[in-house]
Every structure is written in structure tokens, then in C-alpha cells.
């Protein structure tokens, strides 16, 4: 019993020392792992939204009376927060110049355009993935219409 306990304490101490040395080596070499802190996720969504808006620019042009077109962007279940899941795309249309879509991560809008693609954001959690906790990665999904 005493031997067992000594071995266990030795194992724990060696794990600590080895871990510290390994980490120090990684830091020294600059190869220490950098985790995604989740700051880029809204950007990924925004990029996806912008590319959809770009693809369908010719359809936006048809709605000349509407100065600002807001789309509710929806995608699949891998958002970190509800706030990030709601992405607003604004398209400012002038009679001659079509500007780049402005993407912001704020509120959703009620204004929808039939011809526009709708990306569905569901903050649904797959509980079969319980070991991963809440979903982390962001994916954009094309609508059925598209």
C-alpha cells in the first residue's frame, strides 16, 4: 500500500515537472498552442453573409424603392451565442452605384426579400455531443431556395 501511494505521488510529481518543462520548451520555440478565442466567429458569419449578398446583387437591384435591404441571416447549429447568431446584412442601393454590403452583428430585421437567399441560424444544441459542451464552430448553410 505504501509503495502504491509512493508510486502515485511520484507519477503526479513527474507529470507536473514534465508538463512544465514541455510547456516551457514550447514557449521557447514559439510552438505553444494558440486556441481560437471565439473572436473571429462573427467575422466568419459576416463573410458568409457578404458572399451571399454579393452573389445575388442583381436581385437586390430590382428593389429600387427600398433604400436598405436587411436580411435575417440564419445558419446551422454551431454558434457560440444567440447574439452572434443574429447577423444583419444591409445593402444600400442607389439608382446607379451598388455598394458593398455592410455587415454588422446586431439585430435581426423583419424585412425580407423573396428572391434573396436565407441562411438559417439555429442555436440548436446536439446533446449527443454533450462531451463537447456548447457548440463552438461556425458554419454557414445555404437555404433551400439556393
Amino acid at each position, binding site marked *: 500500500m505504501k509503495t502504491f501511494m509512493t508510486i502515485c505521488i511520484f507519477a*503526479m510529481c513527474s507529470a507536473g515537472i514534465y508538463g512544465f518543462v514541455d510547456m516551457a520548451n*514550447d514557449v521557447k520555440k514559439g510552438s505553444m498552442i494558440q486556441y481560437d478565442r471565439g473572436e473571429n466567429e462573427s467575422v466568419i458569419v459576416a463573410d458568409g453573409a457578404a458572399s451571399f449578398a454579393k452573389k445575388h446583387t442583381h436581385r437586390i437591384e430590382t428593389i429600387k424603392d427600398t433604400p436598405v435591404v436587411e436580411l435575417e441571416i440564419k445558419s446551422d447549429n454551431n454558434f457560440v451565442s444567440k447574439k452572434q447568431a443574429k447577423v444583419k446584412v444591409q445593402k444600400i442601393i442607389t439608382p446607379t452605384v451598388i455598394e458593398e454590403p455592410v455587415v454588422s452583428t446586431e439585430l435581426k430585421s423583419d424585412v425580407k426579400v423573396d428572391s434573396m437567399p436565407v441562411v438559417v441560424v439555429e442555436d440548436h444544441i446536439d446533446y449527443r455531443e*454533450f462531451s463537447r459542451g456548447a457548440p463552438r464552430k461556425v458554419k454557414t448553410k445555404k437555404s433551400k431556395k439556393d
Partner: protein
Amino acid sequence: MNSRILSAKNASTFGVVVLFWIPIAFLSLLLVFNTIPYFSFNPHLPFLEERTVLYNKLVWRISFYVHIAAGSFCILTALLQFSSWILKKRKKIHIIAGKIYVFVVLLIGAPSGFYMTFFAEGGVGERICFMLMAIFWFYSTLCGFKAAAYEKNFLSHKYWMMRSYSMALTAVTFRIYHIIFFRMGLAHFDNYSISLWISVFGNALVCEAIIFSQSKQYLKTLNS
């Protein structure tokens, strides 16, 4: 005592046990079930894909697989340990499961987890939290084992093992908090950090509160 008061007390105890143990058992089993795909040794699983740099390290890779295997054993065996029926009627099951738990935690789970804490997700604070958790998990299990095997102090054994289980259960509670805070709209990194601290210190506090409420000899166990 009045039989009505007695039956009301029994009913409330039963309710607490059912409300506490059924979700815990279900989520523990779900967690164990979710670890099964990792044993296909497929490096393209989401958790491992985020850690490709670490996965390429042989020691980290071995620690990871050993840790999840050990964790599964810990969670499964620990579920049996708090059953008063097993303790009274099938003491051998308690002893065998306890030996497996102690062996797995002290020799495999805690050391491999401790090594992995140096590379854990999050900042320095989160890594320190993981380290404290690993050390306290190891220490409480060691004290619980010592109390039963050497000192034959089963009250102290019970309380130390409750502390040990509270640390093992952070694997489950962390995910519960993580999902709750996700639902509340917290950003990923804040969510991760808050869930971690709350699960570790929350579990420890709840455990101490249960121990305190159960025993007048609480302070004695701390000195043993």
C-alpha cells in the same frame, strides 16, 4: 417521532436523491458514451482537430487517451459508491469499485490530467484552475484511500471521497454550465472561463456544504 413527520422526511429525502442522482447518472453516462468515438483513434474529431499541434506530441496523445479512459472508469465506478444499498448489502461491490476508482485516479487519471493542464484551453487563469482541480482531486482521493486502508476512519474516508467525487464531477457540471451560459448568449471564451471556475469551486462548495450539514465532526475530518 410522529409517523407523518417521518414519512414526510423520507419522501423529501427520496425526492432529493431522485432529483440529484437521476440527472447526474444520466449525464455521467452520456459523457462516457460521448467519449466512445475517441477510441477509434481518429484524429479528425472536432476536439482533436482544434489541438492538432498537441496531437502530434506523443506524450500528450497518450495522456489524452489514457485520461479519457480513466475518466470513464472513474465516473462509472463512482456512481456505485454512494449507494447506501450497495454499501450495506453488497459491500464487496463497494470495495472493488472503490479500488478501481482509487487506482485509476491516483495512478492514471490525475497524473495524465495534470500533465494536460499545461496545454489546456484558455488563458493562464484557466490552466491554474485545471491544475488546482487535478491536485485537489489527487489529494482528496489519496486522503480518502489512506483513511480507509490505514486509519480505518470511515467517516473521514466518506468525506474525502465526497470531495474527490466533487472534483470528478466537474467534467459533467462544466458542460452543464457551458450549455446554460451558451443559451444565455455568453461569448465562447467568457463562457468557457466562467463555466470552468464555477464548476470547480461550485462543486467544492456544494460538497463542503453537504458535508457540513451531514456531520458535527466536520472539522475533525479536515485534520485527519
